[in-house]
């Protein structure tokens, strides 16, 4: 599998530095599971973090800090020896960490209707800025036309979709910012399931879609 569309460097950096909101980090980490190249880049960025940490002027802790720490460590309940469970090879469509966020693989999902055959599942994160959700667009159907107030990242998990930027398949990331207005079209043959994260509510073009927007929480 070849990934053609990657996550922009500055977003990978936000993930590595810890400044990205949780929903962004969720889509980055899920893409990383499918993309060795971005995985490598995040490691590079984390190395920068390590290197910056190393170069910080040390600030002394209180006199007895080490003794207090050892007391704390000795007082811990016996650490269960972390023997890694042998990996049970259950193939799944949704990679971690996404699978844990939605409570299981595809068969466990409870889809809600979004209109025009499109289904969705809002995903709960603790950040107040960005919103994550799974979208399921029937094969060959368009996703309702929308523009953005902010940035949107979309990660394809099954099927594919096309925009003017090209075709997006499993593992690919589509990046849209405030200026982009697009009508993604799902590919034929397989429903397109993707993870979409926005840092501002979408602006839908049609009045109908606008009217329902406040009620469906996207």
């Amino acid at each position, binding site marked *: 599998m070849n990934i053609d569309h990657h996550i*922009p*460097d*500055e977003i990978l950096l*936000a993930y590595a*530095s*810890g*400044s990205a909101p*949780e929903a962004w*980090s*969720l889509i*980055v*980490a*899920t893409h990383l*599971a*499918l*993309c*060795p190249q971005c995985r*490598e880049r995040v*490691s*590079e*960025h*984390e*190395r*920068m*973090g*390590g*290197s*910056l*940490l*190393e170069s*910080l*002027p*040390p*600030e*002394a*802790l*209180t006199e007895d*800090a*080490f003794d207090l720490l*050892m007391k*704390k*460590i000795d007082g*811990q309940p016996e650490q269960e020896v*972390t023997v890694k469970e042998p*990996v049970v*090879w*259950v193939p*799944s*469509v*949704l*990679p*971690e*960490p996404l*699978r844990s*966020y939605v409570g299981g693989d595809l068969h466990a999902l409870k889809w809600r209707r979004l209109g025009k055959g499109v289904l969705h599942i809002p995903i709960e*994160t*603790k*950040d107040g*800025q960005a919103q994550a959700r799974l979208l399921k667009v029937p094969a060959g159907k368009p996703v309702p036309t929308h523009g953005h107030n902010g940035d949107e990242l979309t990660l394809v998990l099954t099927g594919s979709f096309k925009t003017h930027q090209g075709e997006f398949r499993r593992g690919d990331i589509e990046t849209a910012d405030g200026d982009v207005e697009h009508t993604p079209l799902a590919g034929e043959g397989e429903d397109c399931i993707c993870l979409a994260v926005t*840092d501002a509510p979408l602006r839908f073009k049609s009045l109908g879609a606008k009217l329902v927007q406040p009620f469906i929480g996207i």
Partner: protein
Amino acid sequence: MANDVADVFSADDLVHCLLAVGARQDRLAFRVLFDHFAPRVKTYIVQLGCSHQQAEELAQETMVKVWNKASQFDSEKAAPSTWVFRIARNLRIDAFRRESHPELDQNDPSLLPAEERPADITVEQKQSEQQLRKAMDELPQEQMELLHLSFFQDMAHGAIAEKLGLPLGTVKSRLRLALGKLRKKIDDDQMYTSGLSE
């Protein structure tokens, strides 16, 4: 002061200490790690805008994690500083924002593995710690500032743009430029070093 003593240890010494803690809960080795890392983690947390007391607590918590997880440390995959940075980063996200930092699961059957790489790449990985530091020092001030804001001010790109009075697009493209430059610098240096060693 204990900190000065710890600073005479090399990066390799820190690797050995971390491995010793992981293998046999070596307390002397842990003391070295504590003296080296705890004061730096404290500075890291203070720079992120925390009180000294909170920073002290988080530095302590970071070291508890270092003790507990030392057996999982893999010296082939990361330098101790990077490994400790990840622990401190995740703890402070949890503490400040009550959020978690979603991470991929290396044992997930859905994970697409990277292609096998020749063994000498790992050696280059180690060299690149110093090269990275050097390359970062050579970045123009305005680009280094953005890296600092990302790592030490917990600022999303929008917030950085606002603080610096720059358009969002400029912040993004400047960051991209800085990261691209660092990558190129390290690649060039690696070619140079491997050329020398032949």
